[in-house]
């Protein structure tokens, strides 16, 4: 063969793999650009979350005239899927394919499900609102279709997020994980804030056609972002026939093995209590500012931004401190202390009548939540037993997402109950909020107590399993 045809042949051989979604053979260190690309999944997760919980929450009630109770039910549906994160994580740990892939198939399927839910959602909501010709059809069609679309998006979000965190754990060594966790959190926040602004702008002049464009546009962007994210992340691993035929542990067995790990139960309890404590004030923030401190709508919206800003400060600090070798749980514990300080400030703001103190308290709560979230997620990655990264991150996510959802529900309920039974009459309208904030402080103290035996002096990582 002459040299020209040899070169041409080599070009052909080289051309193929470039267009296949496999990573190059495992290198010593995954470059940051690849991790940045992976974190795009978090942007699409943030996009879907803000669409369901924020934008559509308002659109369904105000523009489509759907009853608030029905809207609340629809928004709560995805939380029901959160416990399945553990199962998804475990299935991806034990997934067998001739390509040697474990995470990418789940990322792909999760993306498909999320896309499907978003593609259906606008039509489902329009039918649910009873507009157009939909009033001639039975009501349950709209309800079932809307429920299905919210469930699909929720299932997709839980799947992709779990698998991406597991993949990030696979790809990085312990010393780089704090940076990766920070990156994942920041990208989630970026996705949430950017898409909230874009959705708000696009839906300013609401028409049914615009609703379809916006939600289905989100579906397409989701596929694009997740496609870019999963490309060449996992390498092709040749499996032998014996490996392919080897029996895989059941979910029950994997879970039993995982729970036998170092203080696994205690860590999960701490994550649940802490997340619930930080989550309860989410929906009360704006009404508290408006009702008790008399802030305008524009000002209370800034409160949500202040909370997010505080979160960013927390994630930044956490990444810095943990990269220097601090213990993840000690830092999460610090986060709960910071949170207690913030809640105390918010409580003191009402009798003092000081919006400044309130805003400062909110930023401090955000920072505490950031430190706590970052610390527990980094710990979940670092303590993940060999071959169980998916299950470890799935369990963390299951507890975290369920506790956050529960926290929001309990927070709202607790305020209403406290108002109706007339507890602490002397405090006036603020008493409902006071009781919630006080409960959060108690929960944070309980979190601290649950975590106390997990603290470890900095640099001591010898006993990690």
């Amino acid at each position: 063969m002459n040299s020209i045809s040899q070169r041409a042949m080599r070009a052909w051989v080289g051309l193929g793999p470039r267009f296949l979604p496999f990573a190059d053979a495992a290198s010593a260190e995954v470059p940051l650009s690849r991790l940045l690309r992976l974190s795009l999944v978090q942007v699409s997760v943030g996009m879907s979350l803000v669409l369901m919980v924020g934008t559509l929450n308002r659109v369904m009630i105000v523009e489509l005239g759907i009853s608030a109770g029905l809207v609340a039910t629809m928004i709560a549906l995805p939380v029901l899927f959160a416990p399945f994160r553990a199962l998804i994580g475990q299935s991806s740990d034990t997934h067998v394919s001739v390509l040697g892939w474990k995470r990418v198939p789940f990322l792909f399927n999760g993306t498909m499900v999320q896309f499907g839910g978003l593609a259906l959602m606008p039509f489902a909501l329009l039918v649910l609102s009873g507009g157009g010709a939909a009033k001639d059809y039975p009501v349950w069609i709209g309800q079932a279709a809307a429920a299905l679309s919210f469930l699909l998006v929720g299932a997709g979000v839980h799947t992709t997020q779990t698998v991406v965190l597991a993949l990030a754990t696979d790809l990085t060594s312990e010393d780089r994980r704090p940076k990766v966790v920070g990156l994942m959190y920041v990208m989630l926040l970026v996705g949430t804030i950017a898409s909230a602004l874009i959705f708000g702008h696009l839906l300013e002049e609401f028409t049914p056609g615009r609703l379809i464009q916006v939600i289905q546009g989100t579906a397409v962007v989701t596929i694009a972002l997740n496609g870019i994210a999963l490309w060449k992340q996992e390498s092709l691993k040749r499996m032998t026939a014996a490996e392919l035929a080897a029996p895989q542990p059941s979910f029950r067995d994997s879970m039993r093995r995982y729970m036998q790990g170092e203080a696994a139960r205690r860590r999960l309890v701490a994550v649940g209590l802490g997340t619930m404590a930080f989550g309860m004030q989410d929906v009360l923030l704006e009404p508290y500012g408006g009702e008790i401190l008399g802030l305008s709508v524009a000002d209370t919206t800034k409160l949500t931004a202040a909370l997010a800003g505080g979160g960013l400060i927390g994630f930044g600090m956490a990444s810095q401190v943990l990269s220097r070798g601090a213990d993840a749980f000690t830092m999460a514990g610090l986060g709960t202390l910071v949170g207690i300080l913030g809640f105390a400030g918010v409580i003191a703001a009402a009798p003092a009548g000081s919006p400044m103190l309130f805003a400062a308290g909110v930023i401090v709560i955000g920072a505490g939540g950031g430190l706590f979230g970052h610390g527990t997620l980094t710990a979940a990655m670092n303590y993940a037993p060999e071959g169980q990264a998916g299950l470890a991150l799935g369990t963390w996510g299951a507890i975290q997402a369920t506790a956050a959802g529960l926290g929001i529900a309990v927070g709202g309920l607790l305020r209403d109950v406290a108002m109706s039974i007339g507890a602490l009459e002397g405090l006036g309208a603020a008493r409902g909020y006071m009781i919630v904030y006080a409960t959060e402080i108690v929960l944070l103290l309980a979190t601290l107590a649950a975590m106390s035996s997990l603290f470890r002096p900095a640099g001591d990582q010898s006993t990690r399993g």
Partner: protein
Amino acid sequence: MDNLDDPNRVWPTGLTIKESEALHRHVIDGARVFFAISLFAHLLAYIYSPWLK
């Protein structure tokens, strides 16, 4: 990629037949999901506004 002389590999991708089939199955599954979703979306669109009439 290891052992480039494996007779089961098909160029230019360098995948074996089995591996190609596994990859292809994901593409087909995706297409099926697209198809089912689009059917359902069309049904809902018809209920809301029968072919935009």
